[in-house]
């Protein structure tokens, strides 16, 4: 038996959201255990991004709640949600273009060590060893002294994920982390996500289109369609589901 805290670490309960008359989310519910990992798939406009916006405090839900370790996160301001340990990786690489990789790591580690406090950070001595250890584990060590704007796309994306881990986030929301990557880069990212999931107790929620990625990550799937959860299950279960196939290919091919 898992304890009540680890099970349902993230609990999404009947979240609804409408913009004007358009229902972007029509009552989404699912949960994620601590150190759990799930992948949300679905066509464009199915509400995945709206869901992420609600989980990170960018948007308030119209109804329903999301809780993290029993504390409500839906409807809170974005920086408060962030301080509770929810980190989001956007689809577009959000690295700090003039800064080196080591500087990126320092910013993330400083946020964890000092809680983002100004004076504490001014006096903090940095944590070079930890930064290097994390970079090495992620296979990014060789880029340590490079400026972010010169990094290949795939490395930028992995660096950003790594920053969220270094920040000590409890829940990672990854929005299409392998978009635009080459096959090798995609494999490296999958490995990184797996390793983070295995070696830390970080819970991970991924949005992804790429079914190769989803298959290789081998985690439970949530299929969303038109603002609802269509199905939950393993890759094979989902793939065999006629409803899911219809969702992707259009009704007449079901």
């Amino acid at each position, binding site marked *: 038996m898992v304890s009540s805290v680890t099970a349902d670490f993230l609990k999404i309960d009947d979240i609804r959201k409408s913009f004007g008359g358009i229902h972007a989310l029509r009552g989404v519910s699912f949960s994620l255990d601590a150190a759990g990992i799930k992948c949300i798939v679905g066509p464009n406009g199915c509400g995945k991004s709206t869901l992420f916006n609600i989980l990170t405090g960018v948007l308030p839900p119209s109804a329903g709640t999301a809780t993290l370790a029993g504390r409500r996160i839906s409807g809170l301001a*974005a*920086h408060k949600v*962030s*301080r509770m340990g929810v*980190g*989001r990786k956007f689809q577009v690489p*959000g690295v*700090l*273009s*003039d*800064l*080196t*990789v*080591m*500087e*990126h790591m*320092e*910013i*993330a580690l*400083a*946020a964890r060590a*000092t*809680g*983002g406090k*100004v004076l504490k*950070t*001014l*006096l*903090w*001595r*940095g944590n*070079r060893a930890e930064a*290097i250890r994390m*970079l090495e584990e992620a296979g990014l*060590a060789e880029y*340590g*002294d490079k400026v972010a704007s010169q990094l290949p796309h795939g490395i930028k994306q992995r660096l950003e994920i790594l*920053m969220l881990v270094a*920040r000590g986030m409890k829940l990672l929301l990854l929005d299409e982390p392998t978009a635009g990557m080459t096959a090798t880069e995609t494999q490296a990212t999958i490995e990184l996500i797996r390793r983070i999931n295995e070696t830390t107790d970080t819970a991970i929620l991924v949005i992804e289109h790429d079914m190769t990625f989803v298959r290789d990550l081998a985690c439970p799937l949530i299929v969303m369609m038109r603002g609802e959860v269509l199905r939950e299950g393993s890759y094979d279960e989902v793939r065999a589901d006629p409803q899911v196939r219809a969702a992707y290919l259009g009704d007449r091919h079901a």
Partner: protein
Amino acid sequence: MTLRLLPTLAVWAVLAVLPMLLGPWELAMFGQLLIYGIAAMSLAFIWGQGGLVSFGQALFFGAGAYAMSLTSKGMLPGIPDSPWLGLLLAVVAGAVFGGLIGAALFFGKGLRTAYFGIITIAAAVIAERVTTNWRYIGGFNGLLDVPPLPLPGGLDSADPFAGYLLVLGFALLAFLFLLAVERSPYGTVLRGIRCDERRIMSLGFFVPLWKVLALAISGGVAGLAGGLFATQFSFVSPAVIGLALSTEILIWAAVGGKAVLLAAFVGAIIVKYMESYLSETIGNYWLLVTGIAFIAVVVLFPQGLLGRFFALPQPRRLRRD
């Protein structure tokens, strides 16, 4: 690695041996150049690290100069007329003005760079008008006979040799202080804010506070320069707080290189030295030439002309090798 330290060390070494090479009059002039250099560094810090272009840096400089003058002339009720206390208050005044402007602007939402620029211009213009019209602090004529800083051994900073060394000491102190701040993790985060404020916010840093502190630090150092100015020139007038000096400081930092403290410092010394040299020969054309040169640098060398020489290697903490 140490090779990249050489130009920086060389600058300070040359400045240190100048007293042996120059006569008293030239030495006094160089001392004044160093004061401008400190002001340029204060702007380079906030601009190069925090990405905030202040068009009114003289506001902080002038606040320091007036604080120094008023204190050392005993014009502030209840505060002893000590020049050294005056210098301390000059730093405080600059920092407070910086902090106040920062607090007024940054806690609001979505402030654009352009807003910050316009507000600092307005602040400098208004400060100049207020000082011009405020009788108690000397009005248009300003305050004369600001006393020098007393030094041990019966000397004071009016002595060219002692005065120069004193200013040089403060310049080095300001340099090391700003360098330490920008090389601390605080500095790293500040550069991160310059790149992408929202991303830093999303990591849990309350960005406005960081920017307010940065502006207070910058203002404090500019205030120090202003305090030194008042005591070394022994007067202060509305000209030190207004737009003209602000523009000059901006030009020094831009021409030297905003991203590197010492580049801005040396930029100020060179430009100001050329001005004293050339304004006799080309007179009115000097400002026109500076304006055009400034445009050219902005368009062609956005990183300034000297940044390359004086860029220091990253601290050990931020290097992988």
